């Protein structure tokens, strides 16, 4: 049919094709993401209201899985760990990243080399980071043994195997991995500050501390926001780092919601409860993302 039309009015057909081409190209991808992302989100939500165990079943039982989830001590440990890890990880990365960026911004020698060195951990996968830090922090192999062999037999650094402290080792490894990336973000922000402003500040007699605190840092607001958003989603979906570093242990002391969900879905045959925990994770992310998206969209409308 289209060939007949084309032979009669070639210019109109070409124009029509041009108009529809973007939609045609985008629509399969749109359909795929609609199905595979939002379709499965809907399916997971549905499963969380059923009594699915080993295989998915579609018998509706209301909020029972959520009641079980919130009665499980392990879930509370996982949530608490998420807040401890997320809070310290985001704050630590921002602080160290900002300091490194400011130091590198002082027109020092060999800046390119240093920048690469700090950024390189980002090129590793979390599995590699986790495995390397597991060896470094292992009391029998790493830091503790090293210091003891140097002549301090009473030195202890057993955070990795201490259930109270193990979550902080995950924070250390996470900050080591990601602060270089935050540094790169801030450095780009610092470099984009107009030289004229700095010169004006210098003429007005502002010292370096005053210049940074009063002028440059407030201008980095948008960079800070993107850094926080990126770090937050890294923290909420952190899974591989914990699996490699502590395996969720000792016991389940370093469980986070992602490892909890994996354990219940794939090791325990508790699909319904795992789906409930996944929905809770989604709700956490939405609680952060929705206000952000809302403020972004509103700004564009203006």
């Amino acid at each position, binding site marked *: 049919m289209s060939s007949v039309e084309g032979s009669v009015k070639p210019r109109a057909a070409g124009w029509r094709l041009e108009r529809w081409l973007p939609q045609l190209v985008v629509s399969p991808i749109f359909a795929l993401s609609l199905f595979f992302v939002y379709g499965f989100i809907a399916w997971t939500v549905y499963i969380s209201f059923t009594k699915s*165990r080993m*295989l998915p079943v579609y018998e509706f039982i209301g909020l029972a899985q959520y009641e*079980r989830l919130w009665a499980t*001590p392990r879930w509370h440990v996982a949530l608490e760990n998420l807040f401890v890890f997320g809070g310290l990880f985001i704050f630590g990365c921002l602080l160290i990243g900002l300091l490194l960026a400011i130091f590198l911004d002082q027109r020092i020698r060999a800046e390119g080399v240093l920048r690469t060195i700090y950024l390189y951990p980002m090129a590793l996968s979390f599995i590699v980071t986790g495995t390397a830090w597991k060896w470094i922090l292992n009391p029998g192999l790493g830091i503790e043994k090293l210091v003891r062999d140097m002549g301090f037999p009473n030195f202890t650094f057993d955070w990795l195997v201490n259930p109270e402290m193990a979550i902080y080792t995950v924070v250390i490894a996470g900050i080591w991995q990601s602060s270089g990336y935050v540094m790169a973000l801030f450095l780009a922000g610092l470099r984009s500050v107009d030289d004229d402003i700095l010169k004006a500040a210098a003429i007005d007699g502002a010292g370096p501390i005053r210049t940074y605190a009063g002028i440059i840092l407030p201008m980095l607001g948008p960079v800070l926001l993107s850094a926080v958003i990126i770090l937050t989603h890294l923290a909420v979906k952190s899974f591989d780092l914990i699996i490699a570093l*502590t395996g969720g242990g*000792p*016991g389940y002391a370093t469980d986070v919601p992602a490892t909890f969900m994996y354990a219940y879905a794939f090791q325990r045959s*508790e699909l319904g409860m795992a789906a409930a925990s996944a929905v809770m994770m989604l709700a956490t992310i939405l609680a952060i993302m929705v206000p952000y998206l809302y403020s972004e969209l509103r700004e564009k409308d203006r």
Partner: protein
Amino acid sequence: MRSERWFMAAACAAGLFLSSQAVQAQGEVEVLHWWTSGGEAAAVGELKQSYEAEGGTWIDSPIAGGGGDAAMTALRARVVSGNPPAAVQLKGPGIQEWADQGALASVEDVAGENSWDEHLPEVLAGIMKFEGEYVAAPVNIHRVDWLWANPEVLARVDAEMPTTWEEFNAVADKLQAEGITPLAHGGQPWQDATLFEVLVLGIGGPDFYRSALVDLNEEALESQTMVDVFDQLRKLRGYVDPNFSGRDWNLATAMVMNGEAGFQIMGDWAKGEFLAAGKVPGKDFLCAAAPGNGFLLNSDSIAFFNVRDGDQQEGQKVLASLIMSPDFQESFNLAKGSIPARTDVALDAFDECAQRSRADLEAAIEADALLPSMAHEMAVPRTVRGEFMDVVTNFFNSDMSSQDAVETLSSAIERAQL
């Protein structure tokens, strides 16, 4: 276009050729399993060879990772999509769960013909059956409650193999005074749960074990005996070196081998590690039942799934009778370190630990003290086992009191059965 057509024709021809091949062979069977490490891979290789010697086609589907978690995920996907493998490595109540879903095929005619009932311990046969018909075949019997020791280390403190937990504690205290780690252990949930169940049997006895860990009786779970079990578990925690967290079981076995540690409490797959290192039982290492009167049973088995293809059904039958043949049971278990599931297979080729295992097995059957292992997925569904492991491992890694542990355990088990 022409090349495309040619390709189609070739593909059709190949398909015809392949299917005609399959018809000629004596059945075909796809086996999904996670026997992928050293001794295990060798053992499953035995099965493959015997099957192919019968003229069948063996399609190997090994899925490694997560102690079978990855394989179970694959299995779920295959069953839901209506294309299950003919035979799957599956154990314990997992067999019942799949049978409940109507996914398993009966091999009762093969079992009846070869009178499996007469050759298998009743407890084990019960696990293999669904509604009175065999749906799975066991390949071996592992004993979980073993105590492994290094005789040289014991000689340093003039100690013998302990036969009660008091004796064990006394020897361990002496070892600790000498600066030797008394108990080699790896801090992984299933290993913690292994210690726990061995203590439940050792302190509470077989009837208490059955009531608490198999029947999940609330009274037993909350009893004073359970508090005593946790007290002893706390003691064992003191005998473990500070660096135990996350260690694999075979590294703990190596500690006993090297004389760094005195004992290990672990199933008889640990024997495979000793033997692989060229150690001689009775001389380089000692094996004894952990204190307690009973036999904690762990058994690997192959379950048969409903397949529509006649060829595959034929293959299942051949495989089932092969698994239960005395020859296979002997060669497989020599490779894996366990003992045959059939109690009528002679153990002349096996070492003294295996012979001891058989003698204790027979005694336990006699005394009604043959019990399925909780930590190794023989007694309760994975859901319940997971709750046990959470509580035990949390207790082992914290300073929780035994009383609190018992209360947490009881409410966790109740929640899991919801």
